């Protein structure tokens, strides 16, 4: 806290103390002589109202609960730092290109070089810089994750709201869900990747295809529960439009769920990408991605001296997924009004 903040806070507390004094009759009457004390006092109707429990605000309590969780704050910092670094890394000085194959002075490719001062994470089996490739791969994988998460949140929420709010659509969507819920996500992912050409678009498409339905289902259940609560019935009776009820009364309640799903969609997208790459229907090998890096590392992992090629990408991946998982869950916990005690 800097000096100005400190001053502001001091002033604030002095002022509010003054204010409280002028309001509370205790301060005004405490020093009166005994006979005076038994005189009738003035009834102040505003004072009667003022003493309620009003120091609660939803977002205030949510943020307070979140920031009280030191582990979550730590991982939030980790995410922020990693994200920022991932995207500014190519702009830093002395960075190598992720796709260039490096040769030594005699023109031979520098393959499987252990980490040193020039190649911080070493080089891979064809002489590319693993440090640059790791961060480029992280960018690709995070991009896929973000795209899927946004799509899921957007379409899932939209369909979920329609499904839950428009009674006529309920039966239709429920049947649809019952059918698609029977098809394992992994199978859809495999099928789509198998049928379509490998590429970033295919993976995003395949992941989007399955995720939103679960999200919509979740939102729908919540909406059905909240929709007919008394305050919404009252609001409808007063003539509030449906759009306004949805955006003002329903969606704020769902923010925690939506954030949680978004935060978890990213690690799961990264995991799925690693998986399809392993099966051989993932991204083409010339696009650096965490899946490709892990796969390349797997091929050489039986040699202990080359194990770094697996461990560096794995470590970055684990840091990102674990942080997102923890932050997402902690935020959802903090945003749950039941935990605001």
């Amino acid at each position, binding site marked *: 806290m800097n000096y100005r903040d400190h001053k502001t806070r001091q002033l604030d507390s002095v002022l509010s103390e003054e204010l409280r004094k002028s309001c509370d009759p205790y301060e005004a009457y405490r020093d009166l002589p005994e006979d005076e004390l038994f005189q009738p006092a003035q009834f102040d109707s505003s004072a009667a109202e003022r003493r309620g429990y009003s120091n609660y605000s939803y977002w205030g309590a949510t943020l307070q609960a979140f920031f009280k969780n030191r582990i979550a704050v730590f991982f939030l910092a980790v995410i922020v730092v990693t994200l920022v670094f991932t995207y500014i890394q190519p702009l830093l000085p002395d960075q190598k290109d992720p796709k260039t194959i490096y040769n030594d002075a005699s023109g031979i490719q520098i393959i499987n070089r252990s980490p040193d001062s020039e190649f911080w994470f070493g080089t891979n089996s064809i002489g590319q810089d693993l440090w640059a490739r790791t961060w480029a791969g992280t960018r690709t994988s995070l991009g896929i994750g973000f795209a899927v998460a946004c799509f899921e949140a957007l379409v899932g929420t939209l369909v979920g709201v329609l499904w839950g709010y428009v009674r006529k659509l309920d039966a239709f969507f429920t049947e649809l869900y019952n059918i698609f819920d029977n098809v*394992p996500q992994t199978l859809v992912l495999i099928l789509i990747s198998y049928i379509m050409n490998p590429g970033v678009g295919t993976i995003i498409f395949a992941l989007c295809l399955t995720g939103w339905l679960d999200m919509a289902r979740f939102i729908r259940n919540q909406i059905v529960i909240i929709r007919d609560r008394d305050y919404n019935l009252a609001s409808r009776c007063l003539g509030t439009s449906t759009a306004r009820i949805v955006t003002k009364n329903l969606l704020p309640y769902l923010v925690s769920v939506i954030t949680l799903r978004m935060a978890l969609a990213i690690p799961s997208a990264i995991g799925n990408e690693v998986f399809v790459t392993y099966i051989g229907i993932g991204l083409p090998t010339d696009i650096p991605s965490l899946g490709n890096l892990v796969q390349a590392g797997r091929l050489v992992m039986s040699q202990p001296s080359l194990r770094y090629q697996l461990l560096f990408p*794995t470590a970055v991946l684990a840091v990102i997924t674990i942080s997102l998982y923890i932050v997402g869950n902690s935020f959802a916990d903090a945003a749950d009004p039941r935990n605001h005690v």
Partner: protein
Amino acid sequence: MAKYIVKRVLHSMITLCIVIFIVLALLRQMPIEGYFSNFDKVSKAQIAVTLKKLGLQDPLFVQVGHYMLQLLHGNFGRSIKYREGYSIAKIIAQKAPISIEIGLISVGLALLVGLPLGIAMANSVKTKWKFWDRFGTVLIVIVEAVPSAVYHLLIQLYGSELFGVSMLFSRDDITTWLLPIFSLSLGNIVYYAMWLRRFMVDESNKDYIRLARAKGVPSKQISRSHVFRNAIVPLVQYIPNSILFTLMGSLYVESLYSIPGMGGLLVQAIKIQDNTLVEALVVLYSIISVAGLLLGDLLMAVFDPRISFTGKEGSRR
């Protein structure tokens, strides 16, 4: 109760038909190379003849109808590349036992470890140090957050080094069973523990638990005969599905350890582009999935008297 079962089974049958239809409709979009063992060498005329013979140029409904009829006779068609002309049903019959053996052991392990862990976590929520809750949470976070494709790999790598066992599976060497079984059960352990804990914590905040405490029931007995008993109900719905899927073998673990099971088979079929084999396996997985959800709902009806009474479908999730 009987009425509910009949209704639920019929519902599953219809769902299954639709699912198979969708799966086939998608699968028939696969590149046609996958229907030939030697695509580069055959002429265009031969291709057309073969496609016609396989019924691939009929309207989709006809194709699906044919396929369903075949399925009813337990016939999955014939493999194209994996073992040319060999009956797929026979291939699966050869591969299934090993997957089921390993699956059964790992599910047993998961239930034996996961459920007690969940109970220990829920019971320690209200204690001072929350040891089990913290321990379990760390485990859950790691297993849930890190993609399974990565931790399976690390278990294989470091497990084989630490215990000095082979990275590859061999039927006769019992030590090579340990790592894949552990790997397979880890996901289920965490899954059971996580949900059991959550359901138990939810239940323990309900009014009837307060009444049970007011009755003077000792807390151990409350935990056992009220909290656990009621928390297991929503979990029971998912257990058949997770068991069936483990029995079907994990795509990833089986191929990592070269276990000659069904999961590895699908990965292999995809890699060599054997369309009929992929089709058969995907349809089989869909059937298993539908059957798992059906079993889950029926099991839940057995455990929860309210369901058979109201005749409503059990709520999912």
